[in-house]
């Protein structure tokens, strides 16, 4: 048995994961329960501390919330994260810029194209290159399609968390259509690795306009159905109106962005305030509400689906012709057919996929509006083909802190509604 095999078998045990890591010096097994830091003494005598997660049916991934309850009221809530920590930022330092999109795309896995976009934009900024107009519009189309699919996922899971289980099925029905369109364009249903530094990976397929317009019609019909099902529904309103209220000051102080901030009456959307791609060239509204409760956030995301459909329709009408990626051969690989014909193309292809391209030293921070809020990429380069530091400012990481303002004082069942309305994706929280 060769040594790696032996070591692997040694590590495998049926006894439990305690033995995967070396025992402490005293030889005792460590406590499995990890508190994630200090848990201060409870204030009231009759409170109970319970643990929600990290494995629980509310499908928001591996989030653990420790709550101190006074009968049904939540006195204190502390989110404990890190159960999905993947070391992506460390992996990002070991992958070239060409490979980088495959890594970042898996952070916010409900809207992977936003991650790829922000990473590619950061790399392009450091390289000081521009992408062709068609590439910009394709990127915008894809990111808006992704926003639609992410908000549909939110509608589905939010509905299910609050008890409207059929919402799960309805939301998924439209999401499947969106994923199918994304699959026809990018090749994958999720984690597309399509938006890359320099442009996009391939051109749009034939017949995409017809497919996209069909999708827009289907999504609009679907959104109408969700509206009918939920918005005036008295049970839905009872569970969401006035629940989890947050004010603008609290949201800004806690670093919350996206629908949470917009639900407090603060109309801040990066697509409108600091436009990127071609957002200053298309018409859309920034959806915001005034009450800051769960119902508002549900409504914002519902209407944002319609706004995204509007943008997608404009992309279909006005998609410019041209290249789908920059012609700079040092950054993007040549078309596959050229490799057979030209030695230079072959060499470029080889260098790009083995060594990657070098980025001059520098640092930059680029931010876009993902379905969850402001996603930013802080990229530091040193002239080699791999980044020195790849940091993604994940919106859910900061949005989760807004739980501090929303959950205490409410009832336990409201905590589920509130966490659901924050719409955290643990992949970008833990990275």
């Amino acid at each position, binding site marked *: 048995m060769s040594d790696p095999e032996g070591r692997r078998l040694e590590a495998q045990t049926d006894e439990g994961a305690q033995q995967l890591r070396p025992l402490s010096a005293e030889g005792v097994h460590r406590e499995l329960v990890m508190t994630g*830091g200090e848990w201060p003494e409870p204030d009231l005598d009759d409170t109970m501390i319970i643990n929600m997660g990290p494995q629980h049916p509310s499908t928001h991934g591996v989030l653990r919330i420790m709550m101190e309850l006074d009968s049904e009221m939540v006195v204190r809530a502390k989110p404990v994260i890190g159960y999905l920590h993947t070391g992506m*930022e460390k992996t990002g330092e070991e992958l070239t810029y060409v490979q980088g999109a495959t890594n970042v795309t898996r952070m916010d896995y409900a809207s992977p194209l936003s991650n790829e976009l922000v990473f590619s934009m950061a790399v392009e900024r450091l390289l000081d290159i521009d992408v062709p107009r068609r590439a910009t519009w394709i990127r915008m189309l894809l990111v808006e399609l992704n926003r639609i699919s992410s908000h549909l996922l939110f509608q589905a899971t939010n509905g299910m968390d609050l008890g409207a289980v059929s919402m799960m099925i309805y939301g998924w029905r439209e999401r499947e259509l969106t994923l199918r369109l994304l699959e026809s364009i990018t090749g994958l249903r999720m984690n597309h690795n399509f938006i890359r530094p320099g442009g996009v990976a391939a051109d749009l397929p034939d017949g995409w306009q017809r497919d996209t317009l069909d999708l827009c019609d289907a999504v609009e019909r679907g959104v109408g159905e969700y509206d009918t099902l939920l918005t005036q529904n008295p049970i839905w309103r009872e569970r969401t109106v006035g629940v989890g209220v947050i004010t603008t000051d609290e949201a800004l*102080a806690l*670093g919350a*962005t996206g629908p949470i901030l917009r639900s407090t009456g603060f109309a801040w959307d990066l697509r409108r305030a600091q436009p990127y791609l071609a957002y200053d060239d298309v018409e859309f509204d920034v959806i915001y509400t005034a009450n800051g409760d769960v119902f508002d956030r549900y409504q914002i995301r519902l209407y944002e689906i319609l706004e995204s459909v509007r943008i997608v329709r404009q992309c279909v009408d006005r998609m410019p012709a041209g290249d789908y990626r920059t012609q700079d051969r040092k950054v993007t690989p040549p078309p596959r057919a050229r490799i057979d014909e030209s030695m230079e193309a072959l060499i470029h292809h080889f260098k790009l996929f083995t060594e990657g391209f070098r980025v001059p030293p*520098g*640092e*930059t921070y680029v931010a876009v509006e993902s379905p969850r809020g402001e996603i*930013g990429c802080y990229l530091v380069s040193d002239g080699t083909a791999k980044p020195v530091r790849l940091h993604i*400012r994940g919106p859910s990481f900061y949005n989760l802190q807004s739980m501090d303002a929303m959950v205490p004082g409410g009832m336990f069942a409201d905590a589920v509604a509130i966490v659901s309305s924050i719409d955290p994706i643990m992949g970008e929280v833990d990275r």
Partner: protein
Amino acid sequence: MPDDDTTDAAREEDHEVPVDDEVGAALVERFDGAVFVSSHGQPVVYVPRDAWHDVAAWLQGEQQFTQCLDVTAVDHLVDEARIVPAGVEAERYEVVANFLSHPRNRRIRVITEVPTDDPAVASLTDLSPGASFAEREVYDLFGITFAGHPDLTRILMPDDWVGFPLRKDDAPARVPVTFKGDPSPR
């Protein structure tokens, strides 16, 4: 400081650029030792470590930078080429904070150098509670402590983890795989 590999574009940033950003100009004037740099069109200010908290308070209080978006760190141990503007003493770690002003619709990035032997910086949580998670993450992954943070414990790694994973001298702990491009030793 190695500068052989910098390109012309990068070298420009080292010069005494006219501080064309009004916030950057005011900051440099107000705080001794602050250096302004325009990094690919974005305003960046390098401040001395002891002014970290004051700069953040000033930005928030007087310059209407309503939100501290992000606090992170960089480990420059094995950089091949590094951009450090004139007047800034390069250290191993840099702590970076991004601020956004909604009313003025502008951003600014503040960077401070943190030495290896004393990796500590003031915490911004009293000004912006939203920096709490971010500072815990920097502590967890880099080992940089934030003075005044209410709960500076590990957030992403298990509580009893030894080591700071994102430091360059902390091993990525790859399992050797049979793949020619695999960077790990075999």
